[in-house]
């Protein structure tokens, strides 16, 4: 697919910066996110 071809469907969406991409698999950050997401899910479960 043409990246960033004017008026094409891939022209408009935001794309992640290299830093954002790195953080997605950064072990320390993801360990923290693991805890945060689990807490979020458990809070949701407790709501019922």
């Amino acid at each position, binding site marked *: *697919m043409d*990246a960033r071809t004017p008026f094409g*469907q*891939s022209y*408009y*969406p*935001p*794309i*992640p910066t290299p830093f954002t991409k790195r*953080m*997605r*698999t950064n*072990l320390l*950050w*993801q*360990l923290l*996110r*693991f805890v945060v*997401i*689990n807490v*979020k*899910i*458990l*809070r*949701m*479960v407790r*709501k*019922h």
Partner: protein
Amino acid sequence: MSRLVVLGAGIAGQTAALHARRKLGRDHEVVVVSPNSRWNWIPSNIWVGVGVMRPEQVTFPLQPVYEKTGITFVQAKAVSVHPEGRSGSPGPYVTVEQTEQGRAGETEMVPYDYLINATGPKLNFGATKGLGPSANSLSVCTYDHAAHASKALDEAVERMRKGEKQTLLVGTGHGNCTCQGAAFEYIFNVEFELRRRGVREKARIVWLSNEHELGDFGMGGMFIRRGGYVTHSRVFTESLFTERGIEWVTRAHVQEVAPGEVSFETLDGEERSLKFDFGMLLPPFSGVGLKAYDAAGGDITSRLFAANGFMLVDGDYAKKPYEEWSPDDWPKTYQSPAYPNVFAVGIAFAPPHAISKPMTSPKGTPIFPTPPRTGMPSGVMAREVAFNVVDMMTGKEKAPTRKASLAHMGAACIASAGASPLRGTAVSMTVFPIIPDFKAYPDTGRELRYTSGEIGLAGHWIKHLLHFGFIYKAKANPLWVAIPE
């Protein structure tokens, strides 16, 4: 002594049967009727479909679990419900057709005092000409289908290794499909695998779906807080597709799948076609086609079931325009209004209407997703219904007291975007409530504190944990009750 019969041993049926068995004394009987001898953790079929798991890793045999817990297992498929019994018979019963080897096709009457219908969906490939693994497209809805899809993917990869360009098409095979989340996971896992196998540049990957926009997922999408804005899931999803170089076609109703070519109509009335080398298109769902008869043998199917085959429960099924839909339309106790000892949970109950706004093409073709019913709500409603049935069976209550409306329930969904312990990712989504409530939350329909989405390796770890956790729970291993639905 009374007898609870649970039809179906999927996520909802297994949850209901295990909780009911745990709560009921041995003077009561719990019977499970299900055609398949194995339990399947369906969410991991995605990984079977790309070859990172084998069918044995996502299934286990049911009989040992039922022996251990004291549940009677009838390996059969229910064909009809007789809620009034038959003149001369002692009470209500279900007619079942054996599926066990050696007894296949034999019919039997299974009497019940209480009935929980958790038969899930019929995979309605027949709704679209040429759709499905026995015709011209692949599926990942069952572990067999997924194993077949994995083989086809290997063959496509082989062709790419030889230098051929391939078009891989993934999405929904009909204008009224649901479960877009599963197709979303599959396309991202396919893309991840192609990169891992070093052939990504040889592949054109296309998403084809009945959603109005990407990120709808059959629930009108969701709004989340992101970078100082409240953003629709469309933005997030388009970004994920663009980043991976995946093209998308939305608002599409597939009319026919021919070998290597799909024809579809779009919401603006255009008729188009697309050639493909590998095509995984989900089927629309309907009820499994149970019939119902009164004591005199008269057909009362329409009293128990909606036209789409799903069971009518305590929802508001009056036809009304989108503007008049209310969270209150959604069922709370899943009790049949016609027979108070009959319930339906999981995918088997009839939703009162869609969640995404219904849309119709100029030719009158409905093109919009039907409501998704994912694992977590299926489990929660099954547990609450089991508790209500136990209370009624033991004489503690005369009517259901616990409620589990999707309008007051949240859901968490972890959508895999690639399986690898250090490089994999998954989108972790939470929504509350599942049914948007624009009165309580005027701008977004949902509570922003509990509605979120992010992608990362942590999501993949959670998805893996859920795989092992839910298989452990469904096996009723020690402390299974501590694992939430």
